[in-house]
């Protein structure tokens, strides 16, 4: 019964965070100095035309009214109209979201598979020269600006060696019947390789270090010693008992990493001209396309918040001490 209460208060917290982020977003985009329409009002427009345009976007009303309209629209899933593209923001965002998600998940899955294995291995080899050399190297990958790593990979593997294309999701001229068709094409995978590698190299450090330190802790636990006294094989001891326990927090960190990666995508997508949410946000901000920037921001925030929730739930689900309380 305590469980229901916990879930209830967690959901309440989620609602509060959502409302707060939405409000902060509104204030951020409305209280900015200058007329938000300035970039899109042609100096040749008459005052009347300008006011008409303002009215069209609801910018002539008092702030609190704008806020209510904004909340109402959001509840209906209406994110407004892009200044620049003159299409509904939602439409544009859902066009780009799959690209971002594919990049995020492919790179993170690679990073986690590698990080977990390497982390467990380094825990096993603790004190050896391999570990002594590996840890500073891993810390160094965490210290790299992601976009710089992307630039270096691009300069080497695309511009110098010509192995991979330099940007975008497909070669110009190639047409695909649908998303699935595109995502399974060699063309797309070749475009995905470098940005995914960039993000994966950057992201593997977190699961690796986490897995390693958890393993080191778990290996000292009594139940691991007991497993040895039971005469179980080394594999059973290390994998079924030590790694299984060490994995718990690493798995939950995956959800948090997704939310986090989405923010890192902002720069990496820009380097590789990857048509995703992050690059769109940057472009929209640069072009003062407020509705689109706001929508992209909101979408990223939604994924971040949702992933934080998922991390909590995942932990509760994976840890019997919580799920079987």
């Amino acid at each position, binding site marked *: 019964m305590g469980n229901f209460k916990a879930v209830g208060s967690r959901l309440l917290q989620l609602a509060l965070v959502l409302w707060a982020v939405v409000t902060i977003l509104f204030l951020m985009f409305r209280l900015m100095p200058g007329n938000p329409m300035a970039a899109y009002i042609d100096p040749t427009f008459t005052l009347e035309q300008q006011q008409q345009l303002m009215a069209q976007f609801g910018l002539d009303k008092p702030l609190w009214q704008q806020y209510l309209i904004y909340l109402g629209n959001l509840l209906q899933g209406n994110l407004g109209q892009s200044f620049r593209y003159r299409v509904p923001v939602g439409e544009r965002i859902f066009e780009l979201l799959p690209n971002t998600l594919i990049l995020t998940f492919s790179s993170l899955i690679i990073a986690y598979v590698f990080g977990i294995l390497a982390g467990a291995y380094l825990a096993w080899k603790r004190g050896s020269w391999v570990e002594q050399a590996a840890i500073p190297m891993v810390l160094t990958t965490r210290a790299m600006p992601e976009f710089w790593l992307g630039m270096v990979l691009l300069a080497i593997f695309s511009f110098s060696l010509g192995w991979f294309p330099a940007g975008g999701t497909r070669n110009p001229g190639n047409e695909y019947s649908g998303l699935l068709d595109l995502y399974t094409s060699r063309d797309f995978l070749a475009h995905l390789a470098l940005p995914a590698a960039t993000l994966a190299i950057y992201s593997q450090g977190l699961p690796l270090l986490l897995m390693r330190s958890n393993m080191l802790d778990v290996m000292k636990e009594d139940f691991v010693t*007991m497993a040895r006294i*039971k*005469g179980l094989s080394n594999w*059973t001891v290390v994998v079924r*008992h030590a790694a299984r326990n060490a994995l718990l927090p690493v798995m939950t960190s995956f959800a948090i990493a997704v939310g986090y990666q989405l923010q890192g995508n902002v720069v990496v997508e820009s380097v590789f001209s990857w048509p995703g949410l992050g690059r769109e946000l940057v472009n929209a901000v640069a072009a003062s396309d407020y509705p689109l920037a706001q929508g992209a921001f909101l979408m990223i925030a939604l994924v971040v918040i949702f992933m934080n929730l998922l991390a909590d739930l995942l932990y509760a689900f994976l840890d019997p001490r919580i799920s079987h309380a």
Partner: protein
Amino acid sequence: MTEPLLSVRDLRVSYQVGRNFVHAVDGASFDVPRGSITGLVGESGCGKTTVARALTRVIAENATISGGQIMFDGKDLAKIPEKEMNALRWRDIAFVPQSAMNSLDPVYTVEYQLGEVLRRRGGMNRKQARARSEELFEMVGIDRGRLADYPHQFSGGMRQRVAIALALALDPKLIIADEPVTALDVIVQRQILDQLKELQTRLGISVILVTHDISVVAYICDRTVVMYAGKVAESGTMHQTLTAPSHPYSMGLRNAFPDLQGAASGVLTPIEGAPPNLANPPAGCRFKPRCPFALDICGSEPPVIDVAPGHPVLCHRAKESASLRIEAAKTETWMAPA
């Protein structure tokens, strides 16, 4: 008399700490007869847990068995190859840990953990393992419906029963119980000990019970091995060592504990001082600094003297033990250590 199940001779275990070696067990010898409960007793840090773990050869990474013999059923456990040792683990020698909470894997059900041992170590199939698990739970008095529960869902006493069931799983010849009831309250302690005694008698297994609590020894043990500072001070039957202790340390221990029945037999008198630092032990008898009966001769290595058949004592004054016992019964003897 039949040959003992386990016969430890001159066992040495040392820990490497930095560049120094600490001899946690420094020449321990004792026997464990078949079908008995042998209490391994002493203050914390005396090496009793290290002895217990050395018998399984699963010891800390910085520890090594640096000498001696562990004759178990005709094999020297200190010498046999790791593979042969591993085959013995749990099938012949099982272990009941101090805290079952930490010794059971939190992410698996109890049934899984029983099944793991039964299948991987006992060669059973799923069905046999299930049947055996139910049988084991019945033996230790837990409802079989609780097999599917996780360790954290049991109470402390119940968890300790689970640990006993786990130890019994493969019908071992020897069970080493390391402070199996220390973390429990007195009533539960007695229940668990009764159960252990009952199962031990019924199944005819041998048990080594490691404890700091002499009342636990008095309650269920047949034999006692008293350890002090890495050495065996005295060993013999429970009556020899507790009713008529011959080593001053055993005499002191007896005064320092109430019995498990709760009957406070007079005043409790602690032994003043602390056990020596094993990185740098005192020369001669290690109990000398705390011993009220120490003489100059105690500065030299004490001999092992058999005060009765099967009752060796590590003390220069072992032969005078009858008169020392009378002195030791007085509280004031322990007030001002020499």
